């Protein structure tokens, strides 16, 4: 019976699964590029969830004609679409910043592995400390 509900809400279920995969990739994958892709997937999962909230079966996109003759009851909810629009902008902004940071890190450390980068930065720190002594 639970499966029944899941199947009925399959857009939401897919969004949640995608969110889980994206979150885990962002958090635990060591490769920076994959982390960023994971972040993107996580965000699109949330947007998918949000957009599916506004969807009403059989209704159309909320675009009136000039005379305002279409019935308001024939449209889907415009709020989720607007929020997702904002969210997509935020997501691409973050992606650009993350990618530029990745390029800088690669130029400095020649690796895309975040664990190694943290390790190397720590070593550089200690060397500097020794040089100061």
């Amino acid at each position: 019976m639970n499966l029944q509900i899941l199947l009925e809400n399959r857009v939401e279920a897919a969004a949640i699964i995608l969110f889980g995969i994206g979150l885990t990739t962002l958090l635990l994958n060591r490769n920076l590029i994959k982390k960023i892709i994971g972040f993107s997937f996580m965000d699109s999962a949330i947007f998918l969830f949000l957009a599916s909230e506004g969807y009403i079966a059989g209704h159309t996109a909320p675009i009136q004609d000039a005379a305002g003759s279409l019935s308001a009851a024939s449209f889907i909810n415009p709020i989720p679409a607007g929020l997702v629009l904002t969210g997509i902008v935020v997501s691409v902004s973050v992606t650009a910043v993350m990618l530029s940071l990745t390029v800088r890190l690669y130029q400095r450390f020649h690796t895309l592995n975040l664990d190694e980068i943290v390790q190397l930065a720590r070593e550089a720190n200690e060397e500097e400390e020794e040089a100061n002594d």
Partner: protein
Amino acid sequence: MEMVMTLLLIIVLLNAIMVVRTKHLLAACIIFMAQSLVMVLIWILLQSPDLAITEAAVGAGVSSLLFFLALKKIQAIDQGKENSAHEK
């Protein structure tokens, strides 16, 4: 429409798993682009043309471009490092 939606959702999830499993970063970025294109279709099915246009221009367009550029840059940094190693 129901069937198409289900199919697209399955593709979305498969893409996500493939990104995690692939060894090639270029492949991962191409999958990212494919993912954006699938999302465009999903937005159209969900009756949100605004989102479809934006996703096509931004997700499949600019974002993917930035991913490829970043990879190219990383490759160039590698080559530059090798070159300077050879010079030494």
